[in-house]
């Protein structure tokens, strides 16, 4: 059965890494989905929400709900943005009408790997990448959405790919949105700890979230590391 999927590119994906979004489209289509993209979309409102600016976040969240409430399923290449959509009902706790509409959207919003494995039951997408890949559990995907096994199962099915765990386990990369620029030294200390868990032979560091990857890539590049940061979708779209 063909699933119709409304793609949420996320603002970072749209503006900074369109190739990740294109890879997401390719992966979803390979999994048999019909993908639509509504250019009226912008952002999930998380930056304002997490900064305490709820009124400002609500205005953006309402726009999001209006764009996506008619979709069958909303899929984003991000655990954090998806988790934000799942928090909409809490954001609108004092507005029953919007709360109901937000709940409806939240129920059908999925992070990419969870959608592929849980909703579609797809694991092997016929991808091929010859690389040693270390997996980073993005915090919101892991702890708010319970995404842990799904990306690992998808990666194990990639031909030529060797999946390794980070020695620093499930610790945060230190991004945390505005936290990364409000407390840059602290954020970097957390980041350096996270990256200390990479072994010498890792080629690629991957995650489901572009924001974590932005943080980790920024440091790896600054340090002149040979490790590449790649979004899960890019790996799954590799042939």
């Amino acid at each position, binding site marked *: 059965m063909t699933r119709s999927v409304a793609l949420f590119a996320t603002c970072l994906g749209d503006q900074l890494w369109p190739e990740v*979004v294109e890879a997401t489209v390719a992966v979803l289509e390979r999994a048999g989905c019909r993908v639509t993209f509504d*250019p009226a979309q912008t*952002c999930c409102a998380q930056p304002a929400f997490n900064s305490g600016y*709820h009124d400002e*976040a609500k205005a953006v969240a309402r726009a999001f709900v209006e764009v996506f409430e008619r979709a069958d399923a909303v899929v984003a290449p991000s655990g954090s943005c998806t988790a934000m959509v799942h928090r909409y009902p809490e954001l609108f706790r004092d507005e029953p009408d919007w709360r109901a509409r937000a709940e409806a959207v939240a129920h059908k919003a999925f992070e990419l790997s969870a959608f592929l494995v849980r909703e579609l039951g797809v694991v092997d997408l016929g991808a091929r990448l010859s690389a040693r890949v270390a997996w980073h559990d993005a*915090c919101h995907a892991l702890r708010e959405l319970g995404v842990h096994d799904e990306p690992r199962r998808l990666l194990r099915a990639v031909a030529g790919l060797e999946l390794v765990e980070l020695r620093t386990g499930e610790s945060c990369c230190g991004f945390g949105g505005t936290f990364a*620029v409000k*407390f840059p030294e602290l954020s970097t200390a957390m980041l350096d700890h996270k990256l200390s868990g990479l072994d010498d032979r890792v080629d690629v560091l991957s995650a489901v979230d572009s924001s974590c990857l932005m943080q980790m890539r920024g440091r790896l590049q600054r340090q002149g590391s040979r490790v590449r940061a790649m979004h899960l979708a890019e790996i799954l779209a590799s042939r």
Partner: protein
Amino acid sequence: MRVSPLTPETFADNARAALADATLTGALRRATDTFAERRAAAIGAVPDWQELRTRAAAIKAHTLARLDAYLEEFTANATKAGATVHWARDAAEACAIVRDLAQARGSKRLVKSKSMATEEIHLNAALAQDGREPVETDLGEWIIQLAGETPSHIIVPAIHKTKEQIGALFVDKLGIPPSSDPQLLAAEARTRLRAHFAAADLGISGVNFGVAETGTILVLENEGNARMTTTLPAVHVAVMGIEKVIPRFGDLETFLRLLPRSGTGQHLTTYQSMLTGPDPMGQGPRELHIVLLDNGRSRIVADELMRQTLACIRCGACLNACPVYQSIGGHAYGSVYPGPIGAILTPQLQGLHSAGTLPFASSLCGACKDVCPVKIDIPSLLLELRRRAVAGEQVPAAPSRGAAPTTSKPARRKPLEALGWRVWSWVTRSPARFRLATAFARLGQKLPFAMRLFGPMRAWQSSREAPKLAARPFRDRWRGDAR
């Protein structure tokens, strides 16, 4: 590291200073890693761990929702058992109660076992003014007292100090030969503190749980110093936050299964003392005084959203799990309660005006919520406190008669930041404006100099390469594909 009194207001500076101290960060990493491993091993052996957490959270939620009734029940039963119950609205009242008790009995030699509530009210300093400063008897607390510092961890107060630093401290303060052997240092502490115990006439402890049904207080520890403190002196004064009450004696079982495993990874701590009234016939003190401390708690109880903060059983698991705490330790929070629990509790006790930075000092990773034995949703409470800080609201929301007045001040407004988010929202809620704004950003990106004028970009680039806006955003490429 000599620590001057830090405050939450200077968190960013405090954190920077902590990060620059390689000895500190190394000690912290080792300690928090060790605790996290021990905790994981201990709870791995408990098949019904999640059910236990759910049960404990439910007991706490129920108790806090009828706290007045349980406090009255506790007081009645403790009194019936022969204890004297005192009530303190704030730190000053609590300190005065203890001081007056000591004065009236002519108690000069005071000993104290580890207690967060007495740290919160700065009891030692208050009693010192009167020439009655208690000797801390928990090894870690004693080290901190000798050093003139403050604890940096709820469970292990001297977690930030290496054995070499402690050895040097003992040389300096006690005149013993140099050593960095923990066995020798602990043996020295045993000898020195034994003399204090032998002479003590008043013992001060905290309370881990107070049982409403029986008036029992439970004190939990590993060293035996709390047993000494609550047994040897003729008078025992226990300082207890009003949120420590639980309904039934049998509920202790649930919490005893959770607390040591979460804190130190032990199945049980070595000692639990369950004290119901004074016990002179059983070789215990003649008098037991329980000081019930409000100090802002009644206001938190009144705040339905924030109430769960008071479910905390002070196990320290959230500290050990927190990547921020792991990196900088407890002093940087500038408050008695550090780490994730401190980041939600301190602003509620002190007010957002002075502690409004703490809720922002988190990447919201959620590791604290995962490990909390009473399931406090710390990330959601951090987000709610951020909202209130920005909205200029008071925390806790409702003023009350039990309140200390300092918390009535809202957080300082940040007009420029607020304007920034209003503009962001206005832009982002409209696809047309969003497209226009991002197009401008693309132009600005061509002038690296201009980008660096922008504070957040400068902060980012201090340690990381900045990402580049794509030449064409996805929305344009999608149309380009003519789908």
